[in-house]
């Protein structure tokens, strides 16, 4: 499964930002045709992003394009962008499985022969979208992640956004649970105050506790902070290695039960340790890599 610790929005009509999008080290860059682009510039941004996808080197960052809503320019965006081979499309304001099925059909119709299938990230930012999260996650095999867009969501609720985010507690839980049930990733809403680094840190810790696999970012400065929270700490890695070692020792001794520091090592503990080691290996954070 690809890492999507950070997904960084880049305005789709800004050549300077589009050409530098790959230097910030985000796991994904989201070239934005929706909110970051004025209605009169949609054609211009679509053309620019289409060309950027073909000529700009985004390094190891996955290229994601946020298209416009399906009832505005969504279909035009798909026709223009999909043949330029983005890694994924982010679909805004997804309300139901039917929306995803429609997008998947348009994407299939726009793909070139032999092109790697374009993935989909469903952005849930309405009460109905949150309610339908599981059926959206399961609507098509192209869907690799559910993302939460809390600003539009809370506006629809009539709720006031706060720094600690109590008003999105239920939405966060529902998105994480639906994504996990469908076996895909969940990505948390962006922290919108780009100047509040401590606030971002706290919000990312909260998102990680909920079970989100990553966070949307609206400013390049946010990427490193998000990664610092999502990367396993040395203590985590040390613990995970001890779990695996305890398990191996128990197996070597023919014992069916492993324990570490007097506590039983059961399946969920092993699973968590393996996830930490998988991430640590992927990021090159371990002193020696255990195969």
């Amino acid at each position, binding site marked *: 499964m690809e890492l999507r610790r950070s997904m960084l929005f880049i305005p789709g009509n*800004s*050549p*300077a930002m589009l*050409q530098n999008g790959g230097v910030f080290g985000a796991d994904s860059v989201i070239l934005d045709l929706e909110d970051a682009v004025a209605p009169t510039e949609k*054609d*211009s941004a*679509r*053309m*620019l992003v*289409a*060309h*950027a996808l*073909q*000529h*700009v080197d985004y390094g190891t960052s996955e290229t994601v394009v946020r298209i416009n809503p399906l009832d505005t320019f969504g279909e035009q965006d798909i*026709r*223009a962008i999909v043949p330029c081979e983005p890694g994924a499309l982010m679909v805004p304001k997804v309300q139901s499985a039917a929306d995803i099925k429609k997008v998947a059909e348009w994407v299939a119709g726009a793909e070139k022969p032999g092109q790697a299938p374009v993935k989909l990230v469903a952005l849930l930012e309405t009460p109905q979208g949150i309610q339908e999260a599981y059926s959206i996650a399961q609507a098509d095999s192209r869907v690799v992640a559910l993302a939460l867009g809390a600003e539009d969501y809370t506006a629809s609720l009539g709720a006031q956004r706060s720094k600690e985010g109590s008003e999105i507690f239920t939405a966060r839980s529902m998105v994480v649970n639906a994504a996990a049930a469908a076996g895909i990733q969940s990505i948390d809403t962006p922290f919108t105050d780009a100047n509040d680094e401590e606030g971002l840190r706290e919000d990312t810790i909260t998102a990680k506790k909920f079970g989100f696999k990553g966070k949307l970012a609206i400013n390049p400065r946010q990427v490193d902070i998000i990664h610092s929270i999502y990367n396993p700490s040395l203590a985590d890695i040390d613990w995970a290695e001890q779990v695996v070692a305890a398990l191996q020792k128990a197996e070597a001794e023919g014992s069916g039960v492993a324990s570490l520091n007097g506590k039983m090592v059961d399946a969920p503990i092993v699973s968590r340790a393996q996830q930490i080691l998988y991430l640590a290996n992927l990021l090159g954070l371990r002193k020696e890599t255990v195969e």
Partner: protein
Amino acid sequence: MSGVLKTAQAGTLESGDIMITIASGPSDSGIVLELDSIVLAQYGKAISQTIRAVLTAQGITDVYIKAVDRGALDCTIKARTLTALGRAGAVLKEDLV
């Protein structure tokens, strides 16, 4: 169609961008290109060639273009030229606008 229907513009004067203004030229006027660039001495010829190549590929022969470049990459020059053509009423061969 070998020209455009109306005057149109695409792009901005921000760093890394290029502003393309396009207007119809008289029949058989050819491509009249006026280029202003912060890197005119170094890349003026290459920028002109890129713009002309886009026009030729789209079958545009009689047109007036003013381009104000602020250090745009090749892909930006192509994208802005195509957008300006689309806005000016040219029928593009690529289904991108």
